[in-house]
């Protein structure tokens, strides 16, 4: 173990550089968010992930945000265990009928100001599942959505861009 720790000290980090975020997109996002959260939150956001019906593909890639390559915490982004501690809900999946209440209650338990990011094609619009007896619809059919990150699943770098945009926008707001 000592060798690995030493190596870790002297080796070049594997972490990706900061992905470029389009300035106009951030402005548009800031306008959409429309709340002055800067004084409350600064440049840090706590994220609660909610799987509302996903196939687990999006979760795998959200997990990857925590690995050394994307290292999401260096941007002040942190995944938290409770909605009570969260500023942002990252929601995946077509919202199933069986998860609807779970999602609504998680949203209600999150203190304002709060934002919702719908992750993946299913969160954005049901993906290949479509509405059915078991599926209510996209995330925005159940709770208000501020940002959509499409993809099946979206790659970690795309999610990182979206989340950094959210931080920038909230700091400008």
């Amino acid at each position, binding site marked *: 173990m000592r060798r690995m720790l030493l190596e870790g000290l002297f080796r070049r980090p594997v972490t990706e550089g900061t992905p470029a975020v389009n300035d106009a997109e951030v402005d548009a996002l800031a306008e959409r968010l429309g709340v002055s959260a800067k004084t409350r939150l600064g440049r840090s956001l706590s994220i609660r992930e909610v*799987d509302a019906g996903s196939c687990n593909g999006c979760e795998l890639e959200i997990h990857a945000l925590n690995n050394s390559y994307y290292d999401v915490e260096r941007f002040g982004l942190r995944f938290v265990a409770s909605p009570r501690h969260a500023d942002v809900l990252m929601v995946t999946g077509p919202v199933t009928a069986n998860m609807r209440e779970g999602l609504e209650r998680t949203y209600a338990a999150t203190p304002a100001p709060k934002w919702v990011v719908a992750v993946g094609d299913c969160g954005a619009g049901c993906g290949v599942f479509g509405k059915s007896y078991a599926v209510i619809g996209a995330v925005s059919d159940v709770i208000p959505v501020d940002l959509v990150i499409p993809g099946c699943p979206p790659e970690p770098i795309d999610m990182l861009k979206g989340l950094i945009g959210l931080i920038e926008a909230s700091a400008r707001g």
Partner: protein
Amino acid sequence: MSTLRTALLNTALTIEEQRPWPRITVDVDTWRQATLAIAAGNATLSGLWAEPGAVHMALLDDEDGALMVLTLATPDGRFPSVGLTHPPAQRFERAIVDLYGFVADGMPDDRLWLDHDRWGVRAPLGSAAFVPADGSAYAFLKAEGPPLHQIAVGPVHAGIIEPGHFRFSANGEIIVRLEERLGYVHKGIEGLLTDTTLEAAAKVVARVSGDSTVAYSLAFARAAEAALGVGVPQRAIWLRALMTELERLANHLGDIGAICNDAAFALMLAHCGMLREEVLRAAKAAFGHRLMMDRIVPGGVTADLHDSGAIKALTAYIRQRFPRLVELYDNTASLQNRTVSTGRLSAGLARRFGAGGPIGRASGRAFDARKAPGYPPYGDLDFKMAVRDAGDVDARIWVRIDEVYESLELIEQIVDRLPPGPIAYPLAPALRERRVPQAGGLANEPRDGATEGLALIESFRGDVLVWLRTDETGRVLRGTVRDPSAFQWPLLEAAIEGNIVADFPLCNKSFNCSYSGHDL
């Protein structure tokens, strides 16, 4: 089981057009005898599903991997319960009752399972009668006595994981009963596989459980090819195996790190996470998608490997880094203290439930669908089945470690011996022309009318079963999938008994069952 198969074939009312294993219709007596035979351990239950008017039961021979499907007509909507004598069938039966409105006579547990009273309909794939969607309380099994207390967890968990509810009854720190309540991510997949196109069905099946998307696409493709009698080029067969092994490698690396992390040993997660990321990046470079979703389709694959350099560099890198991590795991006493003898699953239960994948193999069930029934190109490849006997968290980690090395071995063999040629045969002409145009690969054997196909594929989690019924134009009339988790989830309840609450995440991660694959 071969004598059982013969006996069942002799009592068959009809033998249906299903490839490559037979499906027979039976009468109630034979159905009952079959349930007694699986309860006695003469065969393994591999699937139990329904359609309007019939129930189907897939039996697996652990020795040679041969399957047989038994069908019982249910004109009055009733069938004799399988779960009455064979507990692994109970949740399947409850799901059938919820979805189709059948009655399973003698069923020991008649609580709703997938139906949480949220759909607005009862028996959505049967009568679909309207009911209010106001939710209902679930009657958890009782564990009573003065020192016992309950801990309710979920459906929204603390980590980045799928939703499900766990109800613990604990005596101080000791768990005396765990009961799972699942079904939260039920998306109606059987409904989506009814009367649809092959393309649409393939996309749905690829998303039954995102971590096994390659294995599911392969199982779907093989079931469709068996039903339709369409061929696959040799190169596609080998590329499919390459993708399946990359998927297994990525998931096992992720799991080994995540299990250790749940024992508060974050260093393993950090390093295994890096290796996993390298696998996903190599998959993206080789096949254009990190999880290789929708790359395997009936008739072949959609992406060719143009440069094997990235894959070769990947295996060399993992071979350099991984042994140090294994050494670290093996030599860290505080970590071993958490994993050794924790969450023990007995060999008897593993066999009875037909536990697939690393869970079964860590409890001595030497079954791997790549070996038996086997499917190409694994017969031409050299690899060992990893089996351990201890049945604890440690054994489940070691099976995964051994399988990482075996997958590296397989990937290197495949890349070295990848045959040239096309990567897919066009499906439409094969269906239209009804002849056998291919040299090499699997030959076309066109079928007429409605035909059925069955496939059993080894995902990183265990054997995935896909069954399809198609018409001669390639349209999917009906289909079902069975995830290995369906048999593994109940075993987690057994393995956790007598452990401390703080070891639950560790045990749960060492099982790593799929919620989405179970809930469907």
